[in-house]
């Protein structure tokens, strides 16, 4: 187990280096001079551009810049400063990450709940009205784009129904702690502002999970050991809980870990539609400004979250499935 973890961590370091280096190379392959954008685009003054090159270290070769970046990261644990705003990137990512995390984790609870409910009930009564309705939901869920869903939700809940109690905010984020003065804060406001983003974000995954859980449960119900459980005289509820679900939900653990890890890098569409200042929005803004330091910051955060969640899944899997041993 310990050796396994050490090996995984070494792989994680390698993965981290490859991902950040590729980000670096791609950035410098784009036919744009970052110093020009930093100094205001077409009207950039040569003086300002020269200063920017020096300040950002753009006069050095790519590998040298990458080395500097690594050195700063390891020694000072700093992601550097934004090319455009000169803000500390640690601070920028630190501000955006809780927004994305709130969206993704809340969304994950929602999509898992819906997926389990629809998936299990559909599997228990295949071809019933309930099953058909569930599968129509799945079809809509996998087909509808989050941006479209976001706009529809905004239109109805934010505009059409604005005089009803179900009216919800359609943009912005409320911090739980230390809300800036003059802005809403606290848990209630936080959840209130996230209702629509959660729903929008969760629909696609809820549909995918419902379909997967339905298929898994139906397959597991035909397993021989489920028949054995019935032959022992176990009541249906117990058969479902202890024998069917326990086995059918094993793959869900893997999927959930990977999907959450991936989404923590930024739920770009949902964040854009509801104007949430999360990592996705931050990344888009940084890319269009050629702000390498910020792009790199978001990439690092996303990479780390994927690595951590994958590791978590592997360890969790060995715990829930006795056939897996970590060596």
């Amino acid at each position: 187990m310990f050796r396994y973890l050490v090996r995984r961590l070494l792989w994680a370091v390698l993965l981290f280096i490859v991902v950040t280096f590729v980000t670096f190379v791609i950035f410098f392959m784009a036919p744009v001079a970052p110093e020009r954008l930093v100094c205001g685009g077409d009207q950039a003054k040569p003086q300002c551009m020269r200063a920017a090159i020096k300040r950002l270290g753009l006069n050095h070769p790519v590998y040298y810049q990458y080395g500097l970046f690594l050195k700063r990261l390891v020694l000072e644990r700093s992601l550097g400063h934004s090319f455009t705003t000169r803000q500390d990137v640690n601070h920028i990512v630190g501000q955006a990450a809780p927004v994305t995390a709130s969206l993704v984790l809340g969304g994950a609870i929602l999509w898992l709940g819906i997926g389990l409910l629809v998936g299990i009930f559909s599997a228990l009564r295949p071809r019933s009205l309930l099953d058909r309705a569930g599968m129509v939901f799945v079809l809509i869920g996998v087909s509808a784009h989050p941006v479209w869903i976001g706009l529809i939700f905004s239109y109805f809940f934010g505009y059409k129904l604005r005089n009803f109690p179900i009216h919800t905010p359609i943009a912005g984020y409320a911090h739980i702690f230390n809300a800036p003065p003059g802005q809403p804060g606290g848990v209630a406001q936080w959840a209130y502002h996230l209702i629509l983003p959660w729903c929008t974000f969760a629909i696609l995954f809820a549909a995918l999970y419902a379909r997967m859980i339905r298929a898994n449960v139906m397959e597991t119900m035909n397993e021989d050991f489920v028949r054995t459980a019935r032959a022992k005289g176990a009541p249906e509820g117990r058969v479902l809980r202890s024998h069917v679900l326990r086995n059918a939900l094993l793959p869900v653990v893997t999927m959930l870990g990977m999907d959450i890890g991936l989404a923590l890098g930024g739920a770009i569409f949902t964040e854009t539609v509801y104007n949430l200042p999360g990592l996705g929005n931050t990344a888009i803004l940084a890319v269009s400004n050629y702000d390498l330091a910020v792009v790199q910051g978001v990439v690092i955060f996303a990479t780390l979250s994927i690595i951590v969640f994958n590791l978590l899944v592997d360890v969790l899997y060995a715990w829930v499935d006795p056939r897996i041993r970590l060596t």
Partner: protein
Amino acid sequence: MSLLEVKDLHTSFRTDDGIVRAVEGVSFEVEKGQTLGIVGESGSGKSVTCLTIMGLNPSRNTISTGEALWKGKNLLTAKPRELREIRGSEISMIFQDPMTSLNPVHTIGRQLIEAIQLHRDLTKRAAHARARELLKAVGIPKADARMDDYPHQFSGGMRQRVMIAMALINDPDLLIADEPTTALDVTTQAQILTLMKRLQEEFGSAVLIITHDLGVVAETADDVLVMYAAKVVEQASVDDLFNRPQHPYTWGLMGSLPRLEADLERLTQIPGQPPSLLRPPAGCRFHPRCPHVMEVCKTTVPPLAPSERDPAHLQACHLDQETKDREAAKLLEITMAGAG
């Protein structure tokens, strides 16, 4: 009163292609402490018969009629709750494939204890002791330590032993064994059969053993039911069946048994395939494959009737008694000649 009395059992499945009649008009009795063997090819309805008795067919698309009287109570019309109380305590079942019949994510101990606690009000400690006792009885080495192992840590033969332990844990009156040795290799098969016989004497359960292997039947059963295409074609005591087989299908089965002694070029085989149960052949269902087929066989269904020689020996064939005796004698001669 018999322990189990099955009367004119019919089971059909609704499928997308039509109705499959998997069991048609099966009747038999199992007495206390006795062993009944059901023999037949795959798809002849032997497993479905047992699953119907246990109420384990999917309820959505299954239609069952007839009676399966367990100590006088009809299992086919019993409430799910009553059926659950009988399953695993009075009637228990062993399945064909021990590799997939145990839940991979629970320990052996937990699965054994579950079987006990579903039916008996025992403390965890007592149930644990009982489970260990059974594991020892079925010959699992280091039974105490292996309680906490998972199914994948056992070999196929050992898993089947665990299944047997689980089936016997509540002292059932009837043990249904659905091809208990089919998935095992030959040496393990013999061990499991010996074990089952020993435990049957020890626990005094009646056994209903399903197999396609006449050798298994000869070794274990008191009475035999031969099934072909959802119907019973012959029913007799095991001695009678092997000494005076009355049905061409039984002859085919016996002729295809490999024998060490017999000096044969190749084994006889039954030509053709078992018929589809969606559209079974008219008349006698065996007629398309029967070497003795007559005109009457193609149109008239032969009733399952007592043979002329012995009223306890039931058979369903239109052939005259002389031909039957001749063929049976011929078959016996081959065996005896080899043995002599």
